[in-house]
């Protein structure tokens, strides 16, 4: 199976890279991208299936994201 963890900066945290990217998008001729935020996506192959939820969330909370500045979401794409 596949696990996809998406990590995005908390909305309270400013994201200069996102701001710069929004600007760049405008330069490319799309006037209204609105707010752009940049995060990480971690794709885990998990050939032997996923660990139990506690372990999985521990990994997301303590390693893959930093709760001080980021939120994460977990998906299991087909």
């Amino acid at each position, binding site marked *: 199976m596949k696990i996809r963890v998406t990590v995005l900066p908390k909305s309270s945290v400013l994201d200069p*890279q996102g701001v*710069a*990217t929004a*600007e*760049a998008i405008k*330069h490319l001729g799309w006037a209204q991208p609105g707010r752009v935020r940049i995060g990480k996506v971690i794709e885990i192959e998990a050939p032997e299936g996923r660990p139990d939820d506690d372990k999985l969330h521990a990994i997301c909370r303590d390693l893959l994201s930093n709760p001080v500045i980021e939120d994460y979401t977990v998906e299991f794409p087909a």
Partner: protein
Amino acid sequence: MKDPTITPELIAKHGITPDEYARIQGILGRDPNFTELGIFSVMWSEHCSYKNSRPELKKFPTSGPRILVKAGEENAGVLDVGDGWAVAFKIESHNHPSAVEPFQGAATGVGGIIRDIFTMGARPIFLLDSLRFGPIEAGAPGAAANRHLLAGVVSGIAHYGNCIGLPTVGGETWFDETYAGNPLVNVFCLGVLRHDQIARGAARGSGNPVFYVGAETGRDGLAGAAFASRELTEESREDRPAVQVGDPFREKLLLEACLELLASGCVAGIQDMGAAGLTCSTCETASRGGSGIDVDLDLVPKRETGMTPYEILLSESQERMLVIVHRGQEDRVREIFEKWDLPHACIGQVTDDGLMRIRVGTRVVAEIPAADLTDQAPVYHREAAEWTPPQDLDISTVPMVDLTAALPRLLAHPTLTGKRWIWEQYDHMVRNGAVVGPGSDAAVFYARECGKFLAASVDGNGLISRLDPREGGRRCVAEAARNLACAGAVPLGATDNLNFGNPHKPEIFRQLRDSVEGMAEACRAFDTPVTGGNVSLYNESPAGPIDPTPVVAMVGVIEDEAHITRQGFRGPGDSVWLLGERAAGLDASQFLLILHGRKEGRPPQTDLGTEVSLHQAVRDAIRDGLVRSAHDCAEGGIAVALAECCLSGEGLVGVEIFLPDDERRDDESLFHEAPGRVLVTVDPADEEAFHDLATLCRLPVRKLGTTGGSELVIHLRTQTWRWPVEALFPAWDGALGKLMGTVAEPLAAH
């Protein structure tokens, strides 16, 4: 999977000519199979075989009392610096990969040259970079694309160098339309070692195990060597797989592991897997060792499944080394690799049959006489076009411009402007050695390992090389040597990077030949043997070949720390002297190019005899404690050089200058680029001693004025120009940052 059958088309696709194919059949006594064809194609590419340039490279002086390892013998030359210590240094280009993927292209270029140095057993201690891009000013054609390339290349070099902990302490950066679509990215690395630590890339001792260590092999960078030896076409932008991704973290572990391994005495031979990866490293070590080598591809650590022998052998995955180990030491070696968490495997052994034998399990997939593969590589004596020397510039065709406005414009031009935006992205302070970092003529690095102060500078001038390749060759060597002299250093040796177009064109080959002859002549004059270098040909974009751009990096030593000298004015009240006064026209000057858009004229010729005594005089004056600051007059002429002195010191310092009447037009007097001139400041109390010393060396010398005040003031005849240094500073220091804004971080980078 089934190998494709060998057809003339397939042979041509591998860049192998019919003659070369016949030569291959001769060596093998049969037709090569697909894998062998791939091996020959990379080993006989320009990048690995220098088949088009070798006869020219022989013209460089390569020997001298300090040479411990000669050019071409190993991955990098080694020079004695005294007290049992030596330096290994080399410059490498990564032009084509950087054109396709600036961040990774530049990053892996850094990784490659660092491996060349620690392969020699040396501890790498600093880097220099020499860069060329198309125009980036607002409104210039392709400015956005060129900025993207600059941003990507600089952050790529920063990424790799900063992460591995090597300071980039100097370099040079030029902008010209000739490099649009074909940027130049040349990186220099220097390492230190004791004489008895020199490692060899030879496979010796039949029966000795051959270890593979480092990153697993993947399909990335497939056949990059062949790639680097072809012209950049629209397709090569599609040439996806030829770009590699670097892992500076892995390389840092590899570096530490290899130095620990070499210190352990277990190593019989070591070779990095650079261009042509496993192929090149196996056959070169065997060929150097006069031995054979037998390798089983099944044992090679791989990142991907289903790789063919062809792919494994030609892959250019980064951060890999081949290590030949003394029999019996295997466990010791494994222990060290494990400590550093590095993938490793014993993939074969040294044999005595002179063959490079590649197996998959028991099946032999390639068998080639190793020595023939390297020594029998074709050598071409290309045809050179006739040279028609350029006309002298007719100054009457050059409209006079407002020189008060001209200087700030020149100082804000990307080529001449301060490069802080670039070098602040490099951790130039790590290793606590950058005594003189970026921002002065030459960098001075304190090598704590051996307690030596090493100076280094990298220089090239494509404009001059375009108009007069031979002079261009002399000029870049002379400028590098002059930069070292201004820092107080004695030059020891040089490494060169030859960036040219397609040598099959007689015009281009002439540029290559003349450039090399000019460089060789100058290296002899300064007694700086060439310890090695790199050739990058086929630098052509759809718009045509680049201007010939030979680049030289020179290394020197400063015996006494007290003699380290910088270019910036130290403060008010010093008298300013010009050593090596000389008049010239605006031929081949940045002034003529930047303000009039003209690449014209006959460059003022370098007089090597005068240069040598000039540099000696500068050093003597420094040793006698007479010099407060010294700066080489180069691009932009004396006006720009003076401005740099005012702006690049600890604080801003003004100066009042009285230029001699050289019976030239004002613009010529201020901005001509005659070589062999150095601006020196002297404590008034020492003026007489300084003057005596200069005249003793039979050098034209003249007092120009005194530092102080808040303006750069230049008097010439009845004319006076005034520039407040406060106003010049932002133009010079901030221009690049303004141009680059914050779009500078290409998203793909992180």
